[in-house]
């Protein structure tokens, strides 16, 4: 079997008195879609933030391509090809949609013009990308702080499309989306898989999870309590693992 592109071993994290993650192991292979599920406060977002370089784990190791890495900063994570769509979206409210979409990966001219941004090119690509996700904006120049919840989430997701990452992490990407957009996101995940990219997706919608995920990892109170492969579990097994209904059985 192909070695995992991303491997976590015994990752732990505390916030003051709260144990958010406890010795979590996780593997992600090329072209694989893994879903991370769990109750509210189970530690899913914390795990994503650790892989994204936003939070630093108290203990444990992260391996990318079988090499141990220190993902101290978001730049480090981007550097090894990890792109993240955060639950809180992490948009700059004072910038417009186009600037947010390309933030940190602007299309620019050469240094001799001071790396001027190529607004025209960016607007065109933005249009195409947003269209492909059915995100409809009425103006490209309003700061995104004034956009609707779904429009904001759409922009956050589309950021993954203008970069070329090996691993995409999506933290509840469909929470605020309308029905059309939601379908587009599921489609996007499958398209990413086809392109042999790896996807780690968090969702509370178990139907969606069963639809797209090759493997489902369940967290409860910061601990990994179960892992299911596609087709090898029933909905009720999944629910039981999440809620801890048959405590000690799973």
């Amino acid at each position: 079997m192909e070695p995992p592109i991303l491997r976590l071993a015994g990752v732990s994290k505390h916030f003051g008195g709260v144990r958010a993650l406890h010795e979590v192991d996780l593997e992600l292979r090329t072209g694989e879609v893994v879903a991370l599920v769990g109750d509210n406060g189970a530690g899913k977002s914390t795990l994503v933030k650790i892989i994204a370089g936003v939070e630093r784990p108290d203990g444990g190791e992260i391996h990318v391509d079988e090499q141990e890495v220190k993902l101290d900063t978001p730049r480090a994570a981007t550097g090894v090809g990890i792109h993240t769509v955060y639950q809180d979206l992490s948009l700059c409210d004072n910038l417009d949609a186009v600037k947010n979409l390309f933030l940190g990966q602007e299309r620019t001219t050469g240094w001799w013009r001071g790396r001027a941004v190529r607004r025209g090119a960016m607007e065109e690509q933005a249009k195409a990308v947003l269209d492909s996700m059915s995100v409809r904006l009425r103006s490209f120049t309003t700061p995104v702080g004034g956009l609707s919840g779904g429009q904001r989430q759409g922009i956050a997701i589309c950021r993954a499309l203008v970069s070329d990452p090996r691993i995409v992490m999506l933290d509840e990407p469909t929470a605020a989306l309308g029905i059309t957009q939601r379908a587009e996101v599921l489609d996007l995940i499958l398209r990413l898989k086809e392109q042999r990219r790896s996807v780690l997706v968090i969702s509370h919608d178990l139907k969606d999870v069963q639809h797209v995920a090759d493997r489902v990892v369940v967290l409860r109170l910061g601990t990994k309590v179960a892992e299911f492969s596609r087709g090898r579990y029933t909905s009720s097994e999944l629910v039981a693992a999440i809620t801890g209904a048959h405590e000690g059985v799973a």
Partner: protein
Amino acid sequence: MSVSATSRTPLAGRITAAFEDRLRNVPVLIVLGAIWLFFDTRSDAYLSSQNLTNLVLQIVTTAILALGIVFVLLVGEIDLSSAILSGVCATVVANYAVTSGWNLYAALAVGVLLGMVAMLVQALIIVFGVPSLIVTLGGMVVFQGLLLVVLPPEFTVNVGGTDYAKIASEHLPTSLSFVLAVLILIAYAGSRWRDIIGSRSDRTWALVSIGVIGVAVLGGVTVLTRGNGLPFPVLILGVMLIVASYATTSTRYGVHLYAVGGDRDAAQRAGIPVYRMVLYSFLILGACAAIAGVVDASRQLAVSNSSGGGPLMLNAIAAAVVGGTSLFGGRGSVWSALLGALVIGSINNGVQLLGYSPEVQFFATGGVLVVAVAMDVVITRGSLWPRRA
């Protein structure tokens, strides 16, 4: 299609929206006009070409310093040390250029470098985690000491009659000034060329803005060259503003600058080197402080232990804020440095011209400042009253 055609909206709403966006500077300009009108009715001399030249020369130092402060405010930091630092840099330049007889440009380079290094040290402490208010307050006190150290035992260097003094007193010949102004206008029109031929932006809008800016630039040059030509300090300020404007509005650096100020976490998550952006802002401020100090010293023909003191620091911060830059980061433009300094300078100039007693001068200065900004607020939000809460 992602961007649907905008439906017709009430005129008032469209104007207000524009004031918050691309016409952001118009309300401040209206306020400036009101201030000028006010003083013009009270003193004939106020709008004379001589006094306008005075005014512009009086505000150059404040405006250059405010320009640097805009960069620092945009990343969500604050600075209290740059005014004194400007005095230190001006003194060091005077020491080398006048006392030691170095080449003026070499001395200037040393001064600018000193300003940047001093700010870099502070910025590193800020990035380390100490609030910028504290670091720059401490820096201000340290630089006061440094000023005493770099000053010669007589505590003053008189630069009158030297090359140093020419920085403020030289003029660009009138003809050359106009050539320069026209070149700038052509460059500006060129940068809007795509808007004019394309349909992406409003074509009328592009043409109107070129027209308005053309009139403003040529009018300004006409008034300011009445004497012997364009005063050098004005030229320095102008070039700095144009470069800064290009950098903040058209380059990747500019996008990152606003991103860091708008939401530092989000910017960092997008892979922007947040700390490096903060350092850059302070380096720019350091350079601006050095230049402001040199221009000021060259205008006052001396450096002394009062260089960089007095109301310069607060005026520069106020200029940035009056011009529309937010204290909380991410909002504002480099032009606010010029406009704010003009508002504050116009008030001070007018109040002094009227020759009131100090009490009345204080009342008028403070009062007009607040009224001016209140007017700006009302025009920008398009309504007299705020939301009640």
